[in-house]
C-alpha cells in the first residue's frame, strides 16, 4: 500500500542534458530514512563518492521535504537541501522555513535531485508535472530580492522561489540560497553548489495536496498541536519571548549567562549587548510574520526608516546574525547590523560564516598578522562598520582580501599563514556558530561531532542551557538530572548531545522546526510518533523505538559519509581558544571546555570506537546499514565489539 503523507515521487533533473525523470520513492526507504535529511543522506551516499569535487557537475544537489511538509503539523513548512559542501568537502545540508517546501509537495514530489551543469544560466520552473528549463541570463548577477520579484512578476505571484545571489554565482564557499525573500538556506555553501551548476533559481507551484492516512486520528494530532501552543506549559513563553521578540530575544539572556560570542569569540560577555537586543530591535519591526503552519511565529521583518541606513528592509536579523555581525565584530550600531544582514541576504551569503571570516580578519589585523599591502587601504579594526560593509561586498565579488575570505576561514588562514590558524574558528572547515563552549560545555561536543562542522543545529541542547529539571528527569532520570542541568559541567553531556542529535535527525527528516523541539522543548519522540502514524499509515512510525532507531541510522549514515571522505575522529575537535584560553570576562570567567570526557561518552553512546573513531561493524549491522559497512570496509578495518577496542 502506498503510504500517505508522502507523494511517493522523486524528481530527477539533469542540468547537462536538460532532461528530467520521475522515479518512485520506495516505501522501504521511507520506512528506514523517513524523508528530508535522512532521505537526502541515503540518496547522496549512493550517488556520490569521495572523488566528486563539490563544485563539479558530478556533485548532486538534493532538495528534500519530509512526510509532514505541507500538512497542518508543527512548523511543517520546512524543507532542506543537501550536497557535498564546498566549504568543508564533507556532508553539507541546510534547512529553511517559509512556503517553498509545501509547494514541492503540492507539485507532487518528495524530493528533487539535481545533477550536472547547465551550459548557460538557467532556472527550473516546476508546475506540477511540467518542468521548464528557463533561460536565465537576464537574472544572472541580480540580487536575491530582484531576481525573486522578476520571476514572480513574469511567471506568477503564486510561485514560491529559492534563488542565489551574486555570492552563489561567484562560488563564495559559504554562499546561501534565499527562499521567499528572507528565509535562508544559509550554511555549508549550498548557494555555491547552485552557482557551480549555473542554476540561478527554482520556482515551484503545485495544485495538489498532502493526503492523510487516517483523517480522524490526525484530527487529534492537529488538536494537540493547537492545545500545546495555546494552553500548554510552554505556550505563553513561546509567544511572549520567542514569538514577540523573535530570536533576537536571546541576545540579553545569552549575555547574562556569559555565552554571547564577542570579538571573534574572545569572550562571552559584551557590555553593549543591549544595543542589539530583542528590545532594541523591536522599534525597527514593521511586521510580525511566520513560516507555513507555525504557531510560534518568530519571523519578523525589519525596516530602518532614517539615518545612514534608511530604506533597509529585511527579514530578521536573527540571533545568529546579530551576534556574528554585531557583538562578534564589536559593532553596537543596530542599524548597521540590520543593513549588513540585508546585504548578506541580497548577495546570498551565510551571515554566520560571513561575520566569522570578518572577525577573523579583524583579529589578524589587531595582532599584526596581515600586511597593509594585502589590505590595500582597508582598516579592519574592531567596531568598524564601514570596513565590515565593504568586506561583505569584497567577499561577494571576490575582490582583494575578499577573495581570500570567500574561501572560508580555514582556507583563508592557510593562505595568510603566520599563525593566523589559531584565530580561524571553525570545525571541519565550517565557521563556528553563536555559542561558546566555555560558557555552555555541551556546545563543545555539539560542535566537535556535528556532521556539517561547527554548528548548533545538529545537536545543540537546551535542557542544560537554563536547566530544565523536569525535562531532564523525564528524559534522563532523576539521578542524572542535576548534572545534566548544569551547563558549566561536562557531566553527562556526551549522552545528552547524543540524544538531542538523534531527536534533531528525526526532526530534520520529518521535517519540523528546531523551534518547538530545541526550544521550547514541546515536541519529543513520542509526539512525532503520534504525528507520523496517522499521517502516513506506516505502522512502524507509531513505535518510538523504531523512530529512535531510524534517527540513529540517519546520524550514522551521515557520519559515515564523512568517513568516506577521510574525515574522522582527528577532526572531531574544537578550536583551541575554547579548550585552552580561559574565558577572560563575564559570568563564565575562568572556564575552559574540557572536551575529551564528553567526546568519549558521546562515542560510547553512539556505539562507535573511541580509539579509532570508527563505528563498530555491529553498530552498522544493527541499524541495517550493511551497504555502508561494505563500502567503508574497502578503506577501513572496522573494529568489532568482540575483539577489543573500548566499549
Amino acid at each position, binding site marked *: 500500500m502506498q503510504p500517505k503523507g508522502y507523494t511517493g515521487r522523486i524528481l530527477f533533473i539533469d542540468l547537462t542534458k536538460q532532461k528530467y525523470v520521475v522515479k518512485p520513492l520506495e516505501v522501504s526507504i521511507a520506512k528506514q530514512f523517513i524523508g528530508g535529511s535522512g532521505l537526502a543522506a541515503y540518496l547522496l551516499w549512493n550517488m556520490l563518492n569521495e572523488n566528486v569535487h563539490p563544485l563539479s557537475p558530478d556533485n548532486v544537489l538534493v532538495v528534500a521535504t519530509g512526510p509532514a511538509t505541507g500538512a497542518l503539523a508543527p512548523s511543517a513548512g520546512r524543507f532542506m537541501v543537501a550536497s557535498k559542501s564546498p566549504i568543508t568537502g564533507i556532508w553539507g545540508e541546510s534547512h529553511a522555513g517559509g512556503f517553498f517546501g509545501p509547494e514541492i509537495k503540492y507539485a507532487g514530489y518528495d524530493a528533487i535531485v539535481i545533477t550536472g551543469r547547465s551550459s548557460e544560466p538557467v532556472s527550473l520552473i516546476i508546475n506540477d508535472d511540467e518542468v521548464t528549463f528557463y533561460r536565465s541570463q537576464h537574472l544572472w548577477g541580480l540580487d536575491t530580492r530582484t531576481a525573486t520579484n522578476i520571476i514572480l512578476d513574469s511567471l506568477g505571484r503564486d510561485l514560491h522561489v529559492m534563488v542565489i545571489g551574486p555570492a552563489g554565482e561567484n562560488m563564495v564557499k559559504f554562499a546561501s540560497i534565499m527562499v521567499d525573500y528572507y528565509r535562508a538556506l544559509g550554511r555549508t555553501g549550498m548557494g555555491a553548489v547552485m552557482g557551480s551548476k549555473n542554476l540561478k533559481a527554482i520556482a515551484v507551484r503545485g495544485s495538489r495536496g498532502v493526503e492523510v492516512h487516517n483523517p480522524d486520528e490526525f484530527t487529534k494530532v492537529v488538536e494537540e498541536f493547537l492545545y500545546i501552543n495555546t494552553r500548554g506549559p510552554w505556550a505563553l*513563553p513561546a509567544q511572549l*519571548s520567542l514569538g514577540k521578540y523573535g530570536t533576537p530575544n536571546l541576545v540579553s539572556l545569552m549575555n547574562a*549567562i556569559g555565552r554571547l560570542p564577542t570579538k571573534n569569540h574572545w569572550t562571552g560577555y559584551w557590555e553593549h549587548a543591549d544595543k542589539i537586543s530583542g528590545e532594541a530591535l523591536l522599534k525597527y519591526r514593521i511586521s510580525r510574520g511566520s513560516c507555513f503552519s507555525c504557531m510560534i511565529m518568530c519571523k519578523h521583518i525589519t525596516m530602518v526608516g532614517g539615518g545612514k541606513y534608511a530604506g533597509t528592509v529585511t527579514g530578521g536579523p536573527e540571533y545568529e546574525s546579530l551576534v556574528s555581525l554585531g557583538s562578534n565584530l564589536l559593532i553596537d550600531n543596530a542599524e548597521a547590523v540590520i543593513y549588513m544582514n540585508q546585504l548578506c541576504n541580497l548577495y546570498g551569503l551565510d551571515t554566520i560564516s560571513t561575520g566569522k571570516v570578518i572577525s577573523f580578519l579583524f583579529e589578524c589585523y589587531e595582532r599584526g598578522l596581515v600586511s597593509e599591502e594585502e589590505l590595500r587601504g582597508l582598516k579592519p579594526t574592531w567596531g568598524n562598520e564601514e570596513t565590515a560593509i565593504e568586506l561583505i561586498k569584497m567577499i561577494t565579488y571576490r575582490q582583494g582580501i575578499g577573495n581570500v575570505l570567500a574561501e572560508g576561514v580555514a582556507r583563508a588562514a592557510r593562505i595568510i599563514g603566520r599563525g593566523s590558524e589559531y584565530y580561524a574558528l571553525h570545525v571541519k572547515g565550517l565557521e563556528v556558530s553563536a555559542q561558546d563552549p566555555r560558557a555552555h560545555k555541551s556546545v563543545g561536543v555539539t560542535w566537535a561531532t556535528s556532521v556539517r562542522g561547527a554548528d548548533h543545529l545538529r545537536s545543540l541542547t*537546551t535542557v542544560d542551557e537554563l536547566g530544565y529539571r523536569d525535562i531532564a528527569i523525564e528524559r534522563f532520570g532523576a539521578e542524572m538530572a542535576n548534572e545534566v542541568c548544569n551547563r558549566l559541567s561536562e557531566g553527562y553531556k556526551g549522552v545528552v548531545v547524543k540524544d538531542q542529535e538523534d531527536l534533531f535527525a528525526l526532526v530534520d527528516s520529518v521535517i519540523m522546526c528546531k523551534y518547538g523541539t530545541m*526550544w521550547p522543548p514541546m515536541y519529543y519522540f513520542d509526539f512525532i510518533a503520534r504525528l507520523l502514524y496517522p499521517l502516513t499509515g506506516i505502522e512502524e512510525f507509531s513505535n518510538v523505538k523504531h523512530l529512535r532507531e531510524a534517527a540513529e541510522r540517519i546520524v550514522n549514515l551521515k557520519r559515515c559519509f564523512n568517513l568516506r571522505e577521510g574525515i574522522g575522529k582527528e577532526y572531531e575537535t574544537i578550536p583551541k581558544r575554547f579548550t585552552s584560553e580561559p574565558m577572560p570576562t563575564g559570568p563564565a570567567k575562568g572556564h575552559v571546555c574540557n572536551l575529551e570526557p564528553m567526546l568519549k561518552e558521546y562515542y560510547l553512546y553512539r556505539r562507535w570506537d573511541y580509539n579509532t573513531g570508527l563505528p563498530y561493524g555491529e553498530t552498522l549491522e544493527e541499524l541495517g546499514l550493511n551497504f555502508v559497512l561494505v563500502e567503508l570496509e574497502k578503506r577501513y578495518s572496522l573494529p568489532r565489539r568482540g575483539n577489543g577496542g573500548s566499549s
Partner: protein
Amino acid sequence: MVLVRLHGVIKEEGGIGVVNVDAKSVSEVLHKLPSRIKDIVGKYIKYVVIVVDGEILHVNSEKYLEGDEAVDIFLVAGGG
C-alpha cells in the same frame, strides 16, 4: 542595594528597565520589588528566569547576595 535588570515583556509591561532593591536574596528581591513590577513578575512567575552573575537561581532562592550583584529577570527563552 541590589541592581535588578528587567528584560523583555517584564520590562515592557512595567515600563522600567532597572530598579534598585535593598535585599539579601533572590526571594527577598522579588518580595521587595515595586508593587507594579512585583505584580507583573507574579503574573509570569512560572516562566521567570533569574540570573545572578551567570548563575540561574530559583525564584525562592535564599542564597546570600553581597549587594554588588546584578539580578537579571527574564521570561524564559532558549536556543541558539
